[in-house]
């Protein structure tokens, strides 16, 4: 179980400090499948990075299974069983897909690279020895990133827009994979997504906008909000959006 209490995040931007996350309070239970959704720039990835320790919370606390991890660094949190699949994964010259998956699984641990690659819709023979460098397409890189998280036994797994750049066929395979893991393990799963299909398989949806949690609840309760009322919560102040911009009605 992960508990986030009164958390805020202020980062140093080009024009001085920017408050990215405000007064976040959240409890995430084991074995549950959550989706973070909301408008671009709302703070979803930032919240994920604070949970992973990539950003240090400015105020507030984060507790994993009763242990306060607020002060811990990325490595320590990873070793406690938190994982994060990047929205934009970095590339590595000279590191092969197989080696990356082995690193993810841990030194000396057995890793079923073949099954992992199949789970993300990549042909193992074609990819296992390829380098995770600029020769991979965006979608391929994204799938390998997902596989690198699937390789680990985690308490909390965060996937940042896993569907982005992934073709439709693989996408349905991927949602099956996520559902399968969720059934099999106690892992708390967080998917950051804008996809209706992913929202529809979540246990709970957490709507994040403007650095705050706007709504949290069962799919059945949140879904109508997203579809009808909410559209973009900043519609009133927004100078760019108009009634014709579909984005505003995500």
């Amino acid at each position, binding site marked *: 179980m992960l508990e986030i209490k009164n958390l805020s995040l202020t980062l140093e931007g080009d024009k001085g400090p920017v408050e990215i996350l405000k007064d976040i309070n959240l409890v995430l239970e084991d074995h549950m499948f959550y989706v973070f959704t909301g408008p671009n720039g709302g703070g979803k990835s930032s919240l994920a990075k604070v949970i992973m320790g990539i950003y240090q919370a400015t105020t507030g606390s984060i507790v994993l299974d009763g242990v306060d991890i607020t002060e811990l660094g990325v490595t320590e949190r990873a070793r406690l069983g938190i994982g994060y699949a990047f929205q934009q994964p970095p590339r*590595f010259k*000279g590191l092969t897909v197989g080696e990356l998956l082995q*690193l993810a699984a841990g030194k000396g641990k057995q890793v079923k690279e073949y099954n992992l690659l199949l789970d993300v819709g990549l042909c193992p023979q074609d990819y296992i020895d390829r380098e995770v460098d600029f020769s991979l397409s965006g979608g391929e890189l994204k799938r390998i990133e997902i596989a690198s998280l699937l390789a680990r036994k985690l308490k909390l797994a965060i996937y940042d827009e896993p569907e982005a750049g992934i073709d439709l066929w693989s996408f349905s395979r991927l949602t099956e994979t996520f559902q399968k893991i969720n059934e099999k393990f106690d892992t708390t799963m967080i998917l950051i997504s804008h996809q209706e299909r992913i929202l529809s398989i979540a246990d709970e949806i957490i709507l994040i906008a403007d650095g705050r949690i706007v709504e949290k609840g069962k799919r059945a309760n949140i879904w109508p909000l997203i579809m009808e009322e909410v559209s973009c919560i900043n519609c009133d102040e927004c100078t760019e959006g108009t009634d014709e911009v579909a984005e505003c009605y995500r």
Partner: protein
Amino acid sequence: MKLLNAIDKHILQTVAGMHDMPQGAYNIRKNGEGIIRNSTANIEIIPKTDKPGIDVIVKPGARGESVHIPVILTAEGLEDMVYNSFDIGAGADVLIVAGCGIHNPGDKNSRHDGIHNFIVRKGARMRYVEKHYGEGDSHGKKILNPKTVVEIEEDGYAEMELVQISGVDDTKRDTEARLYKNAHLLVTERMLTDGDQYAESKIIVELLGRDSSARIISRSVGRDNSRQIFYPVAVGMNRCRAHVQCDAIIMHQAQIRSIPEIAANHADAQLVHEAAIGKIAGEQLTKLMTMGLSESEAEETILRGFLK
């Protein structure tokens, strides 16, 4: 291997991947002398009579054979100069594993200057792997100044892997290549310097023949107070292609200069160069740390891959 002690064996393994006497032709040079030599039906190794060194003659058409010619320096204060010539016969296909390891136990400098001449004859293929390595905790410097000259005749192909693994205090490498009609060359250079080491590498490739092509790929890591300078040059004299790529990771107080040059003397020469120097990307470190690696493990992993 009765002439070889544990240090020798360790060096041989590091610079030439040798666990035992290799298959094929070989010549092991230790402290300025050839100590073990073996020729085969297709590859002859003959000591030079006018100066130190050997002639390696590969018969035309010899395929799938290898030559190992490692050099070991384990005495302090030794200055070893050697001239090796390689004649790769037409249509042959060989692997040459060179490499020099210095174990300097004392305070005087040890130095090996290898001058290598290659002729890759018509339609022949050669893969050349050279690893340089130094060890020993004392003050004596380990110095390696290789000079390599390669001629690739019509339809010939050469692949050269030049690696400086670690422990070499001072190096000046000089590589020259001349490519004739439809000849191809791939040079990959890997270099790691640390401490107060200094490394300088000049590579000049002249593309003389029509449809010749060359790629020079240099990857290096500079740590601590070390300094590196690279001068890769590709000169196009005919319809040809060349790509020069220098990539360096800089750390600590290291200094790296990269000065690639491309020169076209023919309107159909297509020459490209790229050079980049930068720190390890923070995102890469973070990504590996999210998989449970410590910062230093992540750094090692990134550097190992980069220099592979």
